[in-house]
């Protein structure tokens, strides 16, 4: 089948660094990031921005790791804004002082998403409003003071999902306008910790009920978006709206990726912005063409009427669970591997009664190995 020429990479995500003061168990960064090469320098990021804008990129995400770790963040934002990007900062808030926030605003930053990095070892700390809460409150107040909407993102998993009500209450106290309760996606560190992180169906049901009650109480004052973990679905998510269609991610060392977690796919060599232009990477590189269109699909996707809607789901999930990235995402009930997902969910149901610390949890650490609690 001849596929049409791909459109522009409308959504550009720069993962400016993998460095991060936190150690989240659900971190989607690769588990071997300790071995990844030197971070791009300011001038290299600016070149990426100019080339991407030229291709038609318009939404810019600045994330990490913790992007505030880079002291050239303001320079990068200013350059991006000057080129016409809509600039979104995705931060844990650690390092967001008033001086930096003013400088970012001055540079033209459009939006801030404050992520609630509840590392599990601080769960209680976090929910019982101690240090973490104070930091977030301070940052939230700064965000509001500088007239940004307060957008909060909280990653849910088995160890905190029972506290959805308290989490929402805390978001309300912080003055959030919008809260995204995003269930963990199982890649990177989260994949390694899946058995400890996957909630049970019962936990999920209670969390959804708590969310509905909250919505009823606060009305439109605060909007809550609840992302169901795809393991509980029977159809996959249209991952990245199809690889190589709208999303272009650049890792800290300049490697270009069609999805943040694609780096782990075997047999793929992802091009670096140090060696090639973004135009050739986006349009011509084998890595970006590998999963474009439908030619790569296997059965049951190949002949499925739904393939234009979900593109066969997530390639990384297909690879992690079935060993072949070209298989249907096993979240799909039509996949011959779907039982791998239902079994994991059933397993989470069985062990839900056990204390969460029954198995060791690997906290993200900078040697890329598993440190244990």
């Amino acid at each position, binding site marked *: 089948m001849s596929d049409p020429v791909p459109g*522009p990479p409308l959504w550009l995500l720069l993962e400016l660094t993998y460095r991060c003061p936190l150690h989240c168990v659900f971190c989607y960064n690769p588990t071997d990031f300790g071995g990844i090469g030197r971070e791009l320098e300011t001038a290299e990021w600016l070149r990426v921005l100019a080339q991407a804008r030229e291709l*038609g990129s*318009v*939404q810019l995400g600045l994330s990490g790791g913790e992007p505030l770790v880079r002291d050239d963040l303001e320079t990068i934002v200013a350059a991006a804004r000057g080129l*016409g990007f*809509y600039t979104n900062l995705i931060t844990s808030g650690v390092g967001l002082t008033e001086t930096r926030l003013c400088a970012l605003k001055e540079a033209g930053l459009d*939006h801030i*998403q404050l992520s609630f990095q509840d590392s599990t070892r601080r769960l209680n700390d976090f929910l019982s409003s101690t240090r973490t809460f104070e930091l977030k409150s301070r940052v939230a107040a700064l965000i509001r003071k500088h007239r940004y*909407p307060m*957008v909060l993102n909280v990653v849910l998993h088995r160890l905190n999902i029972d506290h959805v009500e308290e989490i929402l209450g805390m978001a309300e106290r912080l003055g959030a306008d919008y809260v995204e309760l995003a269930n963990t996606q199982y890649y990177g560190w989260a994949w390694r910790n899946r058995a400890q992180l996957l909630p049970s169906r019962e936990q999920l049901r209670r969390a959804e009920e708590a969310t509905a009650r909250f919505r009823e109480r606060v009305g439109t004052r605060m909007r809550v978006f609840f992302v169901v973990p795809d393991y509980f679905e029977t159809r996959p998510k249209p991952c990245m709206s199809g690889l190589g269609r709208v999303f272009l991610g650049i890792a800290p060392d300049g490697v270009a990726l069609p999805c943040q977690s694609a780096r782990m796919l075997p047999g793929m060599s992802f091009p670096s912005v140090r060696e090639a232009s973004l135009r050739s990477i986006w349009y011509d590189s084998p890595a970006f063409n590998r999963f474009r269109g439908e030619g790569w699909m296997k059965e049951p996707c190949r002949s499925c009427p739904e393939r234009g809607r979900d593109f066969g789901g997530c390639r990384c999930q297909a690879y992690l669970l079935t060993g072949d990235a070209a298989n249907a995402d096993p979240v799909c009930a039509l996949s011959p591997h779907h039982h791998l997902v239902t079994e994991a969910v059933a397993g989470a149901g069985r062990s839900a009664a056990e204390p969460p610390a029954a198995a060791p949890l690997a906290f993200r650490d900078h040697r890329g190995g598993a440190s244990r609690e």
Partner: protein
Amino acid sequence: MAIFDTAARPAIGGGFRLQWEPAQAAHVLLYPEGMVRLNQSAAAILTRCDGARTVADIIADLERTYSAAGLSSDVCDFVTFAIERTWLELLP
């Protein structure tokens, strides 16, 4: 039914940005982590919502520019739609 007075002055809502995108040959409205591509009539209206002109001014300007009459209800419908989505806010 319009939910505003034609003497109101619409402006692009906070957090939104309207701009021309050569790569898409269209005006787009950008907002946190998202974008809407506008058709020509939506763009013709939104580009005039600068917080200075009233809805009545905008209607008159569009009727003049496109040598058309009776655009009032279409413009008001779209402005209503845009206010509901917070693309526009009304300045007093």
